[in-house]
């Protein structure tokens, strides 16, 4: 943990009408780690990662990527900076194909004037890469890369979203409750995907309510409470009961974790 | 006190009514009247005209000049105005019954139709007996102008009109068909195209007014028939007369909207001062503002003026 963080946030504030979703929240992510973010419903976890990934514009606060202040005005900008996100609601376009979805917003154009003048897409190239990426991540149960996403099962969709993030994330991959609606088997697959991504050296932010999963894969756990980061704990030093107690306010957070 | 008057036209987009409004405005200025103008959204929009009449009553106007869109439908509103002591004069298009207005200042629309009908028959000569005629009318509700001009044309041409108050009940085989145009270019073109499909040998085209005629001409031109078809119309606006010069229209019955407007304004002023209402032209139940056939190919037995004279008297 003596490395410098790759992504940090300080004092993020976000208000929705009368609700304060983020109340001076801080955040740190280190290279190559899996950082779990846990907290009660409505604690502001999704708001936090939306602010980091450009999906919402915080009212105040600062975000730094590789030490440089950044201010993303759209998810596009965050993506261009190497931050890929799997949102709680997936963010796939149901009527488009798997390949189209994977390349949405980063399409490959034909070489030569067909591409530069007529801006024509290079379909074969995109399909080829999409197929490679999916099989790299072991998602080969999907036969037809041109199938519309709406024809896939929930688990398969989740797989496509995760594969997209894993394939294109060059700095950070963020996943917001990727297993919430999934069954035992499907959840397991997503966990394996997460480990797979980390093994390729990418740091991951994982939001989850599933304590056993969090404690299984996380290197550090960020506990969010009432709109701000309460503390950071090491899953090897604290038990699940500790984490839940801190997160729900049943017990105060330990001093040393607060300082983390 | 100020005397104020209202002008309510069918639309404010047909050049005919645009000119009528200009004429009324000038006359009102000269005579020291205040004038407010209203119009329907489209030809046939009765509700807007009703609302306009009511506004004039609320506004304390002395009189209303109106070109009714729905000649029967507007009658109760007109009655309200007259009951409230306003003088109501129909311009251009008579109410049904015509007595529902205090007076009508209009072209003799039946005569306007007759003139172009006679001219067309005379110009065709012998060929008139196997002519193929298209009728481009105004609106499905058959307002009075529409009926008068259409049936007038038939009378002039020598077609049995059956019921002269109804368009479309005739059985003369020379009639290819009737279609409606809303009195504008687009309607004229589509109607002409449709009738041409029914019978491509059409050689006489009656049109309700000059915008419709201009549209019809485009359709004829598109099929290369513009040279060998007689197009007749009603209006005599400057663009229309120029179209007669250019051969687009063979003959047109010229009307005088500026006269209708200025006479109307004068009548309101007089009514406001003396309470006297205008009189009808002798022998008619309305005040005839006159109609003249304009053509460069005069036909025997039909009185007409040439386009040079026509251009001097044209409006717009």
């Amino acid at each position: 943990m003596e490395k410098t963080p790759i992504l940090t946030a300080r004092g993020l504030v976000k208000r929705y009408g009368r609700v304060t979703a983020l109340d001076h929240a801080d955040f740190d992510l280190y290279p190559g780690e899996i950082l779990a973010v846990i907290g009660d419903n409505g604690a502001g976890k999704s708001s936090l990662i939306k602010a980091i990934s450009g999906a919402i514009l915080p009212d105040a606060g600062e975000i730094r990527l590789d030490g440089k202040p950044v201010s993303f005005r759209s998810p596009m900008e965050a993506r261009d900076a190497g931050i890929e996100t799997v949102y709680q609601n997936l963010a796939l376009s149901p009527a488009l194909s798997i390949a189209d979805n994977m390349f949405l917003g980063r399409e490959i154009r034909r070489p030569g004037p067909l591409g530069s003048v007529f801006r024509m897409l290079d379909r074969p190239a995109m399909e080829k890469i999409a197929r490679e990426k999916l099989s790299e991540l072991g998602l080969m149960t999907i036969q037809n890369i041109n199938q519309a996403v709406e024809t896939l099962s929930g688990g398969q969709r989740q797989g496509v979203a995760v594969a997209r993030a894993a394939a294109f994330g060059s700095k950070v991959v963020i996943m917001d409750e990727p297993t919430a609606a999934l069954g035992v088997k499907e959840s397991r697959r997503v966990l394996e995907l997460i480990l797979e991504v980390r093994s390729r050296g990418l740091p991951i932010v994982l939001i989850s309510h599933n304590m056993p999963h969090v404690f299984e894969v996380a290197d550090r756990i960020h506990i969010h409470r009432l709109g701000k980061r309460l503390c950071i704990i090491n899953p090897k030093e604290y038990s699940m009961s500790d984490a839940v107690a801190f997160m729900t306010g049943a017990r105060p957070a330990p001093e040393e974790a607060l300082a983390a | 006190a100020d005397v104020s008057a209202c002008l309510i036209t069918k639309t404010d987009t047909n050049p005919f009514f645009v000119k009528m409004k200009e004429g009324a405005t000038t006359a009102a200025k000269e005579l020291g009247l205040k004038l407010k103008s209203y119009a329907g959204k489209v030809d046939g929009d009765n509700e807007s005209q009703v609302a306009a009449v009511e506004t004039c009553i609320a506004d304390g106007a002395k009189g209303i000049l109106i070109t009714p869109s729905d000649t029967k439908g507007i009658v109760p509103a007109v009655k309200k105005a007259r009951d409230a002591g306003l003088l109501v004069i129909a311009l251009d298009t008579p109410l049904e019954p015509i007595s529902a207005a205090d007076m009508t200042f209009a072209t003799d629309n039946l005569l306007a139709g007759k003139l172009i009908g006679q001219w067309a028959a005379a110009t065709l000569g012998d060929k008139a007996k196997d002519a193929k005629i298209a009728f481009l009318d105004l609106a499905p509700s058959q307002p009075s102008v529409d009926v008068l001009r259409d049936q007038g044309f038939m009378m002039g041409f020598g077609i049995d009109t059956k019921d002269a108050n109804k368009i479309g009940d005739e059985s003369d085989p020379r009639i290819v068909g009737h279609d409606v145009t809303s009195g504008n270019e687009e309607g004229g073109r589509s109607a002409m195209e449709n009738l041409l499909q029914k019978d491509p040998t059409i050689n006489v085209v009656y049109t309700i007014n000059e915008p419709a005629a201009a549209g019809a001409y485009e359709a004829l031109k598109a099929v290369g028939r513009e040279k060998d078809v007689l197009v007749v119309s009603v209006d005599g606006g400057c663009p229309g007369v120029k179209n007669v010069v250019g051969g687009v229209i063979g003959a047109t019955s010229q009307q005088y909207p500026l006269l209708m407007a200025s006479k109307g304004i004068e009548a309101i002023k007089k009514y406001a001062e003396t309470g006297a209402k205008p009189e009808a032209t002798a022998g008619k139940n309305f005040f005839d503002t006159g109609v003249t056939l304009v053509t460069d190919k005069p036909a025997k037995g039909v009185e007409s003026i040439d386009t040079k004279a026509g251009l001097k008297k044209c409006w717009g």
Partner: protein
Amino acid sequence: MQSTNAASQPSQEFEKVLVDSSTQVASFEHERSLTERFQHFLHSSPAAVPLIVLVLSLIAFGAILGGKFFSAFTLTLILQQVAIVGIVGAAQTLVILTAGIDLSVGAIMVLSSVVMGQFTFRYGLPAELSVLCGFAVGAACGFINGALIAYMRLPPFIVTLGMWQIVLAANFLYSANETIRAQDIEATAPILQFFGNSLRLGGAVLTYGVIAMVLLVAAIWFLLNRTAWGRHLYATGDDPDAAELAGVNVKRMLLSVYTVSGLICALAGWALIGRIGSVSPTAGQFANIESITAVVIGGLSLFGGRGSILGMLFGALIVGVFSLGLRLIGTDPQWTYLLIGVLIIGAVAIDQWIRKVAG
């Protein structure tokens, strides 16, 4: 909720600590500015904005035009001119609250009035019976709309677009474009002109049509806010799937709303005869647009489930005030249309602004 006495022994160790968990919730009010409080007030009373706009425009035109505008006669004239739109707007309101739209209201209104007239004059039916037939025709058209939308799940926009064309064409074909003259109606079947009668109180002229509109809006307000039918209607517009699962018979609801809409349009058709005196198949061409405009300016959401019928009434009155006021000033009517266009966009822009902060 406290831990209950039921046998609750968490099997997972980490759940045992929950008994001590805090009950604080993650939303805390921050200081609210005056604007925000105002926005919140507007948000919680959906008819307030159109009412404010209405009052302001009355004041503005009164200031410009003086007594000519602020007379009982003129103010009640506005009501008369708005009556038909107000009645049709009530039908449109119901439909829009279900997240639908009814483009056939104008056509149904006209067809109903034509049926009332033609059945009396062409077939010699007693006028009262013809009026009933007119209502039946209106309800039938609405019923067909409703059936297609509710049971075949076709989009309302398309169904009523098609119905509009069909009904209008049927209207022209059936009526042979004949207008029935006011004098004839007065002589033979005065009941057709019933809504043209009026109460006069000083300069004020309240036609029965105006009274009908006010009573109708009041009745619908009651239905919407004080009966189960109204609650179900809002729920249907809000989220039809949720409403269905929660026990609302959404299909029957939609069917009833469109049928009622057809009935109200027939009422409007009857009132229309009273207003223009005659029965004209070409009348009511703008009833669609005008009713939707009233609803939109009245602050109802086209996405359904939100807004008040009073808003619609105020919306219609705003348009009426502007139209008459500008006419009295003598502006070119096109300026009125332009202004109404601006009003429409302005109304939703304000609405959006209110929602933004009021949450």
